[in-house]
């Protein structure tokens, strides 16, 4: 069969789960969940971190096998033993992590994921068909470069394009916009929305962003702790009532008010003339001068891929610098374990599961990374006490509300948001003089976001110097005392929060200066 053409003739399908239950060992991640997604609707699935949203959709896709429950497609019961079966029924999913093959080009990724790939691929013909298909998409994508060289936003678009290319009629999007800029997010969701309006597609989107839900979705379902807690039409509920269904009547953390800046507070972090190369070795980042004082939050804004990641990695000791000087409290800083302990520096990179954790070690062990070889007084010990490690982990897990089946489960079995909390628990406890943190709220539910921002503000008020690298401008405006803008590997703009304007910052971010 030839490539699937641009004409989407199939009709959107209705999907329904009945009594879905999923247990991992003794832990019940999903408890008797019934959800109805009508044909051609844009349905939002809401819930706190660890509520079981990903688990539910993975059960529908045949990735997990539910302990109990049934799946109806167009009101007929179907069995999905694996993702192939799901595809057979027109169900497709964009996962929370990317599932494109990094070393294959976009075109290769698209073609090979088709159900009936010919034994020998006629690339000339496929390319023509792909070009024709892409004209029906509202954006352009480079299909001839390996996917690993694409930016996060482009990868996400390609993931969605792939599902449409495969002619899926029911599409699950698991936090599709967490890696996209607001404009990109708008563009992508807008496209999907149009297709649902035309009756070509049904969408189930997992999201933590209420503004997306209200702007694009027409119905929603809420889960809490694995249970169904409500559903309805978007027009009939406001964000507050959806939030109440998500978290019950727990209070949401409020931001501590900002204490005034202390005049001539000591400089904690000083970076001068820093140079480093990026992952490909082709581009260079050059940071002339950055200082962070005790008791202030300095935010670094920028569109992803402009060197923030590399800068963070250099500060965290994960990337070699070519030149330059980094000092913490006046002492040269190379991010060795001894230096971080002596100077009380803590570091939270983005994607902490990959960059700051040992995914297969247990929750307790991961939480102990900073302190396992120290006693209560901060002196080195030669015998590690597993009991003390567990007790401390239990305390922090409770304090930071990390939801895990047990302290002994591998960290990678936690939901995305709970991994983030576990890392925060590790990095924000104890005495911290300098905190370097990148995109701390990626993938977190709204109450967790509020809580983490409150913790950062509290740390600042307590005298910690915080360097906050974030792609979320709202977050920076809410928390920072000063904002720096990074573009093309350089700091191109600096402004105190009092005079910061979204307009100007946006222009510098886009490189218009």
């Amino acid at each position: 069969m030839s490539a699937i053409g641009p004409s989407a003739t199939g009709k959107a399908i209705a999907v329904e789960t009945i009594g879905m239950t999923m247990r991992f060992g003794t832990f019940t991640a999903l408890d008797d969940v019934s959800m109805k997604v009508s044909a051609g609707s844009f349905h939002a699935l809401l819930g706190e971190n660890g509520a079981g949203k990903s688990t539910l959709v993975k059960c529908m896709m045949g990735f997990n096998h539910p302990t109990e429950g049934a799946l109806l497609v167009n009101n007929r019961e179907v069995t999905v033993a694996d993702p192939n079966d799901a595809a057979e029924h027109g169900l497709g999913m964009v996962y929370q992590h990317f599932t494109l093959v990094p070393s294959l080009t976009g075109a290769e990724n698209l073609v090979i994921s088709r159900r009936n790939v010919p034994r020998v691929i006629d690339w000339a013909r496929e390319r023509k068909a792909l070009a024709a298909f892409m004209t029906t998409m509202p954006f352009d994508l480079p299909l001839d470069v390996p996917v690993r060289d694409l930016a996060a936003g482009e990868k996400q678009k390609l993931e969605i394009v792939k599902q449409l290319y495969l002619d899926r009629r029911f599409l699950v999007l698991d936090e599709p916009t967490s890696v996209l800029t607001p404009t990109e997010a708008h563009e992508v969701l807008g496209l999907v929305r149009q297709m649902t309006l035309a009756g070509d597609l049904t969408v189930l989107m997992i999201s933590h962003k209420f503004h997306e839900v209200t702007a694009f979705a027409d119905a929603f379902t809420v889960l809490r702790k694995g249970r169904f807690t409500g559903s309805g039409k978007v027009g009939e509920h406001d964000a507050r009532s959806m939030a109440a269904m998500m978290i019950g009547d727990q209070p949401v953390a409020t931001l501590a008010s900002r204490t005034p800046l202390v005049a001539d507070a000591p400089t904690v972090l000083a970076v001068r003339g820093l140079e480093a190369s990026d992952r490909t070795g082709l581009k260079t980042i050059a940071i002339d001068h950055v200082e962070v004082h005790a008791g202030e939050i300095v935010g670094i804004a920028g569109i992803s891929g402009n060197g923030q990641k590399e800068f963070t990695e250099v500060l965290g000791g994960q990337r070699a610098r070519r030149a330059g000087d980094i000092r913490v409290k006046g002492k040269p800083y190379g991010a060795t374990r001894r230096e971080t302990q002596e100077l009380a520096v803590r570091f939270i990179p983005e994607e902490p599961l990959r960059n700051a954790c040992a995914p297969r070690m247990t929750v307790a062990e991961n939480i102990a990374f900073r302190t396992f070889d120290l006693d209560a007084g901060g002196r080195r010990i030669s015998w590690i006490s597993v009991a003390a490690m567990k007790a401390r982990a239990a305390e922090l897990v409770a304090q930071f509300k990390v939801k895990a089946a047990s302290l002994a489960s591998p960290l990678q079995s936690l939901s995305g948001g709970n991994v983030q909390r576990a890392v925060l628990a590790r990095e924000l406890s104890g005495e911290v003089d300098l905190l370097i943190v990148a995109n701390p709220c990626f993938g977190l539910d709204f109450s967790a976001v509020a809580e983490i921002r409150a913790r950062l503000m509290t740390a600042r008020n307590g005298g910690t110097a915080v360097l906050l690298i974030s792609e979320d401008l709202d977050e920076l405006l809410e928390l920072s005392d000063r904002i720096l803008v990074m573009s093309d590997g350089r700091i191109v703009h600096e402004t105190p929060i009092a005079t910061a304007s979204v307009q100007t910052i946006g222009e510098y971010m886009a490189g218009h200066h």
Partner: protein
Amino acid sequence: MDAGDIGWWGVPIAIVGGAIRVSTPFLFVSLGETITERSGRINLGLEGTLVFGAMTAYAVTVVTLSPWLGVLAAMAAGTLFGLFHGWICKFPRVNDIAIGIALMLLGTGLAFFFGKPFIQPSAPDLPAISLGWWSDIPQVRAALQINVLFLIGAALALFLWWAFRTTRIGLVLRVVGDSSDAARAMGLNPDTVRLLATAAGGALAAIGGAYLTLYYPGSWNEGVSSGQGLMAVALVIFARWNPLGCFAAALLFGGAGALGPALQSVGVTQGYYLFYAAPYVLTLVVMILTSSPGRALAGAPGELTVAK
């Protein structure tokens, strides 16, 4: 000047001849390993497969008097070794490198055990094609005496290069090698694909062994392999998992290996033995020059244990 005495010209000619003659086992083993590694697994046991293949090919040829049957028998044995490796690696918490080392020792040991009776008898050789008829210099004629397996190997390299990008099987192999998650999301079973890829790799490595006993050096004894199976694994990295790169690297290796004997043949009496180490020095130098602490190994399949 006498046609037989070509002085220093003998060195490059001997290197070219050596490259062609010595490279074939490297070529087959590295192509086999490329297939296996592209699927995300390393089979270090190919040295054992090569030696066992060498023994099998020789033994079967001694009995049947047909070298091609010998090659087929070696391929069958290599396939079994590959399947065995792939099957064990399917189990959780099994490390492919450790299994490979065990299989390397097993293969060599079994080959020595079963090969004892075949050290004495002699077997017919695989055919070669003389491409040097246009020259009347005997060294050129000798150098251009090209074995059929070399040509098959060259064609195979070209074929694999093409197949990795234009056939379904090739793309599936790369998908599995680069991301198990993506493969599973596509409904592919990574273990099965890797099992078959390891089997194919074993079959090719065994052909390399057959070449050793059936053509050059052309007899079976326990010293028949000088680590070609192991060097070929390094060669794959050197070739960046590209079949055409494997072909070039195998030639380069063969040529470097011929340097010592060539110098010796033109009458250099001192120090030539140092050049016997040329292939190994060459590997080290290339590896050091092309590696970088800040960058990931370009082109490495993402699921390889060494690339993770």
